[in-house]
């Protein structure tokens, strides 16, 4: 298990490093110059340009710039934001909370409701609840988050005014912030929730038909015990897979949702920084999001081992 963990960790770090190279090269080979953008679209004069390049280290060769950037990164320094004239860390710090809270909220909604609806419709297969859930999930998997977001904002934010339709309530207490994040989180979670419930449903149905569950029924255990003790664990492998994959999707979906609801998170910042060619900020956000993405797939892989001992044994053998 330890050996397996080591290999997985090493590959993850490797992929993360290569991904930073890709983003770095992409951002620096493209046309357009941040100095020109800052100067209102006019090319600045040579002296200003030299000062600018020296200040942000743009006068080195591309590989040298990357090595310098990586060196700073290892010391926890993400570089300097060109647009904000301040360190990237201080630009990111106040915004990272909103994004994490939003994504976490959406992940919770997706997991709790997705699994609950899926298990219920699997158990009461073909009943009215199952039918409604299946039709609902068929529809919602096909509707993108930003459409749901905008429509929810109109329905519950403007017309019914149950929840705030815009802003993050950044200054308020946790409860105010959660209140502000409810609509965005629901919008973000809905299509993933639908998918999770479908996968859970078919996993539960498959497991309910297995021999050991049949055995448990024959031994006269209550239906509740059969479902909770004998069915759930065995059916969780595909569910964990899909939840892991969907968390990655939620991370990037949050970018759009933040923008739709005017939340001051990393996503909105990313869009602004792309438009302003603020290399350091884009690079930092890309790194953070990719890191979360890879980290979650690592956790999912480890969870397999916890759920299914066979995976654990196979892992330690390699």
């Amino acid at each position, binding site marked *: 298990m330890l050996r397996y963990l080591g290999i997985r960790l090493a590959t993850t770090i490797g992929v993360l490093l290569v991904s930073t190279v890709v983003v770095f090269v992409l*951002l620096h080979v493209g046309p357009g110059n941040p100095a020109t953008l800052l100067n209102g679209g006019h090319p600045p004069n040579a002296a200003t340009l030299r000062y600018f390049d020296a200040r942000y280290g743009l006068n080195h060769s591309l590989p040298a710039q990357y090595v310098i950037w990586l060196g700073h990164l290892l010391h926890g320094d993400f570089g300097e934001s060109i647009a904000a004239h301040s360190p990237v860390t201080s630009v990111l710090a106040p915004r990272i909370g909103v994004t994490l809270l939003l994504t976490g909220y959406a992940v919770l909604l997706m997991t709790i409701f997705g699994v609950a609806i899926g298990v219920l419709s699997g158990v009461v297969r073909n009943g009215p609840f199952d039918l409604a859930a299946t039709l609902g999930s068929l529809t919602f998997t096909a509707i993108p988050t930003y459409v749901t977001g905008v429509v929810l904002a109109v329905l519950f934010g403007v017309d019914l005014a149950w929840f705030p339709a815009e802003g993050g309530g950044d200054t308020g207490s946790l409860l105010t912030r959660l209140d502000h994040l409810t609509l965005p989180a629901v919008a973000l979670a809905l299509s993933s929730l639908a998918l999770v419930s479908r996968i859970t449903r078919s996993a539960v149905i498959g497991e309910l038909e297995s021999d050991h569950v049949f055995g448990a029924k024959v031994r006269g255990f209550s239906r509740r015990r059969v479902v909770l003790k004998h069915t759930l664990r065995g059916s969780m492998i595909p569910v964990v897979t899909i939840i892991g994959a969907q968390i990655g999707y939620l991370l990037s*979906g949050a970018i759009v949702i933040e923008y739709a609801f005017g939340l001051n998170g990393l996503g909105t910042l990313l869009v602004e920084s792309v438009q302003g060619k603020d290399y350091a900020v884009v690079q930092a956000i890309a790194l953070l999001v990719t890191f979360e993405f890879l980290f979650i797939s690592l956790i999912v892989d480890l969870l397999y081992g916890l759920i299914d001992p066979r995976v654990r044994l196979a892992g330690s053998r390699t």
Partner: protein
Amino acid sequence: MTTTYTGLDVLLEPAEDLRHTRYGSRLLRGLPKVVVGASIVLLVVIVACAIFAPLLARYNPNTPDLLHPYAGPSAAHLFGQDSAGRDILSRILYGARLSLLGPTIVILIAFGVGVPLGFAAAYTGGWTDIGISRVFDLIFAFPALLLAIVIVATFGTSFYSAVFAVTVTYIPLMGRVVRSACLVERQKPYVEACRLQGYGSWRILVLHVAPNIGRILVSQTTLYFAYALLDLAALSFLGLGAQPPQIDWGTMLENANQGVFQSATGVIFPALAIVLLVVPLNFVADWILEYSRGREERR
């Protein structure tokens, strides 16, 4: 983006699973023919709207009417007017053009590049396979939308750089579908039989394997067309895709979202247009896959 999105192609699995199980309710065992028929009709109508937009639209989609911003639906403006008083119906009709053109380009290129790569990876195996698969893995290491945004950052915000960005994320998706479908087919006895007869691998591939994975491929391509449309609309929604005076449904949604407190109609109609295109595409993709299974069973 959906996605990103690497989780998206799992969508196909539960659908298959639902129909496979003998216990699925009748409604789910196959889509009713009516639904499929209605979906196809709807898709044809939308494509026709895009092609004949200049004939159908009563107004120039970019002509403002500043006296009537956010006007509700009326006899003159069936879907109402947007923040600058432009006719929403005309904008939806014209917007269909870029909204359809974008994913069409994405799919054509992703298909043209991804399918040969997938074939090559599955068929030559060895280092070619490892090389191609590693590059695919690297692209999958990014959340798709994030990678698309970084690529747009590289080439500047425009419709075509958004199309290019989305294409890059779809090439490995197509490639992987082809690769895994090919690997499954290769195990089957008929391929072995062809080999024994001394056919070359390209002949086996083109004449024997390709027809067998054709329908999976067409079904998956239909689904990816829908997702590419959603991804492009998402980029436009973020202001990173089509730029004014270009119109697509994503930019319309963005524009209306800023004035959501004034009027909801501007939000509802482009949202409806997107959903009415994407949901039928999903149904059709499902139906193609099912039809292929029906054929296999008859054989």
